[in-house]
């Protein structure tokens, strides 16, 4: 059962990832990306990481994809597409070649170098508070640094958005 679900999810992730990059219109690409990220959340659930899966759905699909879609709608040109995309030309083939090489190398290397026993331990039900305890003890420095990162992000992104708005004194559209 789990095997079938895993295969279906993998197929979904790979197919929608390819479609996200190759979809003709950017907005459909964003939809496929959202589906791919939902598939990743499904894999998390399969691995027993429900909380992380919910985090993934809420942050990626609920926030990042919405931001991407809205940006796409802002850079949308009224006639036709935004960028004349490169067809499957020389660069596309080069990209596919490089990508294939890297993926193969990484897969072989990881499988060969993995020190972990490949047989999965019994299913375990994680006590969620354990996660918070870990965050508050072993990873506390990282948490503080994340706070600083968030602060920098807010200030940086809002400043960028402000610069962008000063181009239009009244702040209205068009």
């Amino acid at each position, binding site marked *: 059962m789990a095997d079938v679900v895993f295969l279906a999810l993998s197929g979904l992730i790979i197919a929608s990832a390819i479609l996200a990059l190759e979809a003709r219109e950017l907005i459909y690409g964003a939809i496929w990306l959202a589906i791919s990220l939902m598939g990743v959340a499904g894999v998390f*659930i399969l691995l027993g990481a*429900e909380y992380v899966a919910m*985090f993934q759905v*809420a*942050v990626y699909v*609920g*926030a*990042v994809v*919405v*931001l991407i879609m*809205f940006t796409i*709608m*802002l850079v*949308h040109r*009224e006639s036709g597409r935004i960028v004349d995309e490169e067809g499957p030309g020389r660069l596309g083939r080069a990209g596919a070649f490089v990508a294939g090489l890297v993926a193969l190398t990484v897969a072989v290397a990881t499988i060969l170098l993995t020190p972990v026993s490949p047989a999965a331990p019994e299913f375990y039900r994680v006590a*969620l*508070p354990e*996660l*918070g*305890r870990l*965050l*508050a*003890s072993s990873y*506390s420095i990282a*948490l*503080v640094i*994340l*706070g*600083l990162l*968030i*602060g920098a*992000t*807010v*200030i940086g*992104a*809002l400043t960028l*958005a*402000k610069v*962008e*708005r000063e181009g239009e004194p009244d*702040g*209205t*559209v*068009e």
Partner: protein
Amino acid sequence: MALDNWSLVAIFEIVVFLTIFPLLIFGWLMGAKGRHPIRDAPFESGQTPMGEARRRYMMQYYPYLIMFVVFDVVAMFLFTWGLVFSSISFSQDYVFLIFLIILVAPLAYALHLSGKHESW
């Protein structure tokens, strides 16, 4: 019959899907069909539609979206804090309090911008 939680979620969603999807197909098949330039025009309260619909509306509110993405993450981290709050000692709690205090600065900056521009 012991099914785990997520199979139940999947079954429930499949049940909803199997009810709503045939309904949509049914409506598609049963409704009248026809094409006419006026009937296919977008609804604009009876006037002739003008211009492009997919314009760049409401871009002055873009910073709200950025703040949403950021505070989405913050809220998720605070949830983990809430889960352990009463079972860990104060010396561990204050890591999260420092985290919150660091976040005051960007929030204050955002509110400052908000006051200056009437929107962020």
